[in-house]
């Protein structure tokens, strides 16, 4: 065989020029979005019923850093920033990250721009789990409310497991069958949930609030539970970025290029479902993040999953933190469901991007 040597250094240099320019732009974008996220986290802790002046906020944060002698800030302020607001901000960031990455993964896996993290039944399963939980007799005891996330998580994972078992044909998993099975089972579970809502009586409010999605009950314990799932999940999915790119051709071509398509599908479905279920279990069904963030990233920085996945993670985190900050401040002291904000602010922005590009988006 003729070895292709890199004797033409000119050629290589030309390649560097044309190809690395877009790459460099995407790497800068990653750094930029990471800085933006840090800024959003920092500033979001200042906003709320008690407005904290930026000077005090900076002092409070500095006092938490090691080796820096900062002026003392009142413990009340410290409590507001670090025990009330920060866990909520971080949880919103983690959930936004999980939903955006899961959405990008599903869209890539199904090669379908309409795919979102809830496409194959996670949300309907989780909602049923939560609704059933609220109606359990033991829920009269408020202390048992901690059980809701567990039931929601189990419901979400269980629904996808059933969909998977139904759609599986021999050793393969036809994607279209999977989507159809997911839609059908989702409708079935949603009808049960609707029935439970009708008969829920005085527990109606809890169920509806959970389904619409909210971060009002966030605390550090929840952050500690959700963070490992989301961070590990996003890391695993990122390892599959290149196979996911190749699978955009189609499954047969991907196989002929040496990709173990069935294994990639199984791993990505499993991990994306896991991070989605862990995200919704505490905060409810927050819509729109999983579909709008990956598309916006794709519109601006292109379809390569090696960039799409990390950029979606960063953008999704910032987006949901901002949306949640709006949700808790716009109508203060009352809170809006964050899902209302994500769609109300996100949709016009997304339409603007679509309009501006005016070309194929997927």
């Amino acid at each position, binding site marked *: 065989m003729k070895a292709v040597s890199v004797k033409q250094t000119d050629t290589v240099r030309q390649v560097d020029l044309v190809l690395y320019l877009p790459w460099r732009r995407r790497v800068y974008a990653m750094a930029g979005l990471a800085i933006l996220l840090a800024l959003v986290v920092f500033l979001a802790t200042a906003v709320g019923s008690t407005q904290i002046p930026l000077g005090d906020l900076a002092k409070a944060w500095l006092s938490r850093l090691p080796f820096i002698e900062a002026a003392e800030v009142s413990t009340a302020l410290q409590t507001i920033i670090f025990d009330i607001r920060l866990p909520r901000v971080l949880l919103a960031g983690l959930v936004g990250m999980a939903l955006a990455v899961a959405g990008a993964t599903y869209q890539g896996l199904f090669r379908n721009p309409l795919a979102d993290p809830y496409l194959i039944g996670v949300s309907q399963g989780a909602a049923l789990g939560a609704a059933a939980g609220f109606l359990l007799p033991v829920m009269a005891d408020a202390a048992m409310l901690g059980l809701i996330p567990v039931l929601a998580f189990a419901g979400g994972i269980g629904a996808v497991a059933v969909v998977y078992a139904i759609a599986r044909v021999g050793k393969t998993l036809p994607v279209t069958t999977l989507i159809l099975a997911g839609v059908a089972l989702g409708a079935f579970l949603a009808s049960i949930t609707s029935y439970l809502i009708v008969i829920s009586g005085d527990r109606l409010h809890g169920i509806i609030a959970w389904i619409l999605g909210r971060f009002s009950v966030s605390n550090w314990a929840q952050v500690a539970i959700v963070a490992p799932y989301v961070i590990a999940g996003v890391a695993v999915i990122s390892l599959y970025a290149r*196979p996911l790119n190749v699978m955009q*051709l189609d499954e047969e071509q991907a*196989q002929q290029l040496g990709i173990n398509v069935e294994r990639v599908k199984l791993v990505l479905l499993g991990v994306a479902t896991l991070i989605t279920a862990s995200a919704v279990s505490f905060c409810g069904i927050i819509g729109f993040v999983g579909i709008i963030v990956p598309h916006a990233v794709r519109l601006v920085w292109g379809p390569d999953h090696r960039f799409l996945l990390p950029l979606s993670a960063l953008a999704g985190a910032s987006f949901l933190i901002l949306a949640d900050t709006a949700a808790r401040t716009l109508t203060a002291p009352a809170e809006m469901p964050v899902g209302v904000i994500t769609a109300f602010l996100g949709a016009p922005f997304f339409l603007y991007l679509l309009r501006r590009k005016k070309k194929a988006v997927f």
Partner: protein
Amino acid sequence: MSEFQLRLEGMTIGYGERVVLRNVTLEVASGEMLGLIGPNGSGKTTLIRGITRLVALHGGKIFLVGREIRQLSRESLARTVAVVPQNASLPELFTALEVVMMGRTPHLGRFHHESARDFAIAWQAMEATDTLGLAERRVGEFSGGERQRLCIARALAQEPKVLLLDEPTVHLDINHQAETLDLVRALCRNRGLAVLAAFHDLNLAAQYCDRLVMIASGGVHTQGRPEEVITTASIREVYGVDVHIQPHPVNGLPLVTVTPDGRKVEERERMLWKT
């Protein structure tokens, strides 16, 4: 090692219980172009899928560069044999260069980034297929001929020994048909690729291939040089149509043409009158 890069020995393949091709034996040598002809649904695509292990092998053996394909890993299979599919779906938003770089997939480990060498190989593949000028454009904007050349470039980027093409000229205008097949033949001769290409156009198959294999009713009907395979008798038998065969004015290879069959046209006309 045998001189044949691709060798099927009594291969029997099918989907599940259904056998599509039985007892197929053929060989393709380095630098040789073998044409696969046969009616729609005779199993041309299935044969190509079988060689890439996408269809279950019920019996017989498939050798690639002297090794049985069952012994090859997915990656080494993809490093040995590349496929140019029929009407390949390509993701519209990816650029041509990104699609060609996907051809490097079987050469890259999960944690490896494409090196300058990988870019150089993709670059050369695009140079050879005259797609370099398209490198930065999104494939969604491409014409049929450009997409076909791009798929060939991606296949070359795999650095295969064996190239399989599934009806490479279908839906192409005559200029793109000639352009594509000239390219394939040049690559076959110049790089010593063993080429197996399925054709629906008998004349193109006769013009471009060294040897032809005609498949019908689940197996090989005839194989040999174009003039041995393309005869009025074999075509009537396999395709069920009467054709006229004459030597090509330039090179004497068989040239197949059909003319309206007066009797059948009249028959149809009568049927149309009734309705």
